[in-house]
């Protein structure tokens, strides 16, 4: 992207990166090519956007796209992934990754257009400070055959550390986000507002062994549809089905992690959300990309029956809801819409507003105040820029002691005092506090790390390690992490996934090979962070989780520092 000359587009053969996809691709490139001590917004950082190994094929659930860089939020390596159409379209266009490097001339904004004729970079300052929704509308008018957009909102242009990269969904709404770690700020620093993808005239990627691939895909789909989580609970209620349960368990972080229960949670539960969507003419069941058979998403309409946002996810409903004491589903959907439009991470922003509420900037439970605060970010006021820099910065600016972050990134929607095992993952993940870092509940199937007693607290460190390995592997395939729930109980579904990869590439991957891939990815990420100056002291939860008891069960985080340091001793 310059700065001494106009941007240049080059196509490079994969070389040593052949056989990598998704997170394996982004983390390997970042680890090898980005100086760990570089400034995240500087010319030496790179933004890598990579579809998964099976994206662009007819494989079900293969539409995750990974976005990697050195994170402006954590200062470490980052991979954030998203659904939407971007991954499938980019892969069908024949690209294994887009790498944006360098730094542009000042005050210039670009769009990148990629179609079957190749890629070109076009200066377009008319897009400046446009929200993602208006942006994709304008792009659609200009490029009527465009099939997906990858874009940033005003938050990315302002290079705020909570900025996301948005991916359009099947309805061309910019509602899917690579949300965590400020990847949108890096795209903004490169001067790229939007990548327009058009796969018109391109065919699906063909497997090496079409017959075996078809058979494996069929078995995989059958496995997903027959499982109670992927075949029933997620399609019916989406991820927000968790609200009532996590609350019942006393693990629902409420009002900036002060309590484990939110009195009015049934007003914002998945059951209520699905009923509201259906009653207003929206959808309680919807896929974020073509080829999705789980359909965990939905369409949320306002009171007048007009589209407001995609179905807010559990994490979003928690962050802007219970964590801020807000029990108004319409207000939460509006906050989700604003976050998507400005290009902001809903988890980071919910956590940040809760910290601001604790500082007295607004009252807990004041939904309109929360909406106004997000609008401050969109406008780029001084207060908005502080908030858009995340919970850690906001906590420092306003002198708040209880700031729920690890490596500068806000904790998601499970209190680690009640669910201590996930606290181990929050503390030790190379990504900062991230529930999806240990999300792939397939460690039992992969058999990584031997047997542990699942009912013993002693197994938590080993389980967290195994989950992080399994997750890194699944993230590298580009498959939606939700496939893991079926894999947990159905080894044949996992085998079907391996068969799909093998028949597509003509490989002989085994379960051991998958686990090894996960370990390799994690090692390269840990290595990058170490070279960026991270030590074991960064693998810790904030002090208050050890000191403050969490009602109603009155528990504190009990895993010792020594135990946390064992997570990556493999």
């Amino acid at each position, binding site marked *: 992207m310059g700065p001494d000359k106009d941007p240049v587009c080059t196509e490079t053969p994969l070389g040593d990166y052949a056989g990598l996809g998704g997170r394996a691709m982004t983390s390997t490139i970042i680890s090898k090519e980005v100086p760990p001590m570089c400034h995240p917004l500087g010319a030496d950082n790179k933004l890598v956007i990579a579809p998964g190994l099976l994206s662009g094929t007819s494989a079900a659930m293969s539409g995750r796209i990974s976005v990697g860089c050195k994170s402006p939020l954590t200062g470490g390596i980052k991979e954030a992934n998203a659904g939407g159409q971007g991954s499938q379209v980019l892969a069908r266009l024949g690209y294994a990754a887009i790498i944006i490097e360098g730094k542009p001339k000042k005050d210039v904004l670009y769009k990148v257009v990629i179609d079957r004729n190749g890629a070109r970079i076009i200066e377009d300052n008319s897009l400046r400070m446009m929200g993602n929704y208006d942006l994709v509308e304008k792009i659609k008018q200009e490029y009527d055959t465009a099939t997906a957009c990858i874009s940033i909102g005003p938050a990315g242009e302002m290079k705020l550390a909570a900025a996301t990269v948005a991916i359009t969904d099947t309805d061309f709404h910019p509602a899917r986000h690579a949300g965590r770690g400020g990847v949108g700020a890096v795209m903004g620093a490169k001067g790229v507002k939007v990548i327009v993808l058009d796969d018109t005239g391109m065919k699906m990627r063909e497997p090496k062994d079409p017959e075996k691939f078809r058979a494996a895909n069929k078995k995989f789909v059958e496995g997903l549809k027959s499982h109670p989580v992927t075949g029933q609970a997620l399609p019916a209620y989406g991820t927000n089905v968790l609200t009532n349960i996590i609350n019942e368990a006393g693990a629902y972080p409420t009002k900036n992690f002060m309590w484990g229960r939110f009195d009015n949670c049934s007003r914002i539960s998945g059951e209520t959300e699905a009923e509201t969507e259906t009653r207003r003419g929206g959808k309680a069941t919807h896929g974020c990309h073509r080829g999705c058979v789980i359909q965990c998403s939905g369409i949320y309409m306002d009171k007048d029956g007009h589209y407001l946002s995609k179905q807010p996810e559990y994490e979003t409903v928690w962050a802007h809801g219970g964590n801020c004491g807000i029990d108004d589903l319409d207000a939460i959907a509006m906050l989700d819409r604003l976050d998507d439009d400005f290009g902001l991470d809903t988890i980071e922003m919910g956590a940040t507003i809760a910290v601001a509420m604790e500082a007295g900037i607004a009252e807990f439970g004041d939904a309109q105040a929360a909406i106004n605060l997000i609008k401050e970010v969109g406008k780029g006021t001084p207060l908005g820029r502080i908030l858009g820099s995340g919970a850690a910065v906001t906590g420092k600016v306003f002198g708040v002691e209880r700031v729920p972050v690890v490596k500068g990134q806000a904790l998601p929607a499970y209190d680690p005092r009640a669910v201590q095992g996930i606290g181990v993952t929050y503390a030790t993940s190379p990504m900062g506090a991230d529930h999806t870092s240990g999300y792939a509940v397939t460690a039992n199937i992969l058999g990584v790390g031997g047997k542990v007693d699942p009912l013993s607290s002693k197994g938590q460190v080993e389980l967290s390690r195994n989950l992080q390995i399994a997750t890194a592997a699944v993230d590298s395939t580009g498959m939606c992490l*939700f496939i893991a729930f079926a894999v947990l109980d159905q080894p044949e579904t996992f085998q079907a996934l391996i068969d799909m990869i093998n028949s597509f590439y003509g490989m002989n991957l085994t379960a051991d090979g998958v686990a090894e891939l996960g370990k390799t990815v994690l090692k390269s990420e840990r290595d990058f962070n170490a070279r960026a100056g991270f030590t074991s002291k960064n693998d810790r939860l904030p002090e208050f989780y050890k000191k403050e008891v969490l009602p109603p069960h009155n528990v504190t985080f009990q895993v010792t520092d020594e135990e946390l340091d064992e997570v990556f001793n493999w």
Partner: protein
Amino acid sequence: MALKHSSLIELRLTVGPQAVSCFYPLLSSGFMIRVQVGCSIHDLLRDQLGIDGKLVETHIQTVFLNGKAVDDLHQSIIEDGCVLSLSGALPGMVGAAFRKSGFYAGFREAVSFRNNKAPVSGPRPGSLRVKLFNLTGPTIGPFFLRHGIEIAGTELEEVFQTCADTLSDGLRSVKINGRESTSKGLRALDLKHRSIRLFVEASMD
């Protein structure tokens, strides 16, 4: 929520199969049932509510007793005044962790229910608060509705408002405090400040 007997209205409704779902929101927000306490969760569900053992095994994957995650339905005893929450299988790492006797149960050991088998006394009348989340509403909710649930009148009023059209088509019979009545009689009831013992049966049409 304690319900006063003095203000209790007993309502017995028969509704068409499509209208039963109108009452599911009541089940997730919680209700009281009167049962014999001092038995295990499994025995309560199978013997007192008539839920088939296989249905209990397969559809009830996540159970909380007084807010703590249960691993063994046979070893966990229902006592008077306790809160029992039931759910189907759940997504998420934490969803997997809360599953009864699941592989990842160690993750939530701090909030696991300690088995309390060896009850101090045998079965005796009592009450408990029940919450049915997600797919347990449609799958086992009808058993609870047949058994009879106790709720606040305002909650039922909300159901009647939200599902006015469905219930107007689907209401087959009404009994108020043991006497036959009609949908008109039902509408005339002042439900505010009253407690309701509600029985709902699905008709065979």
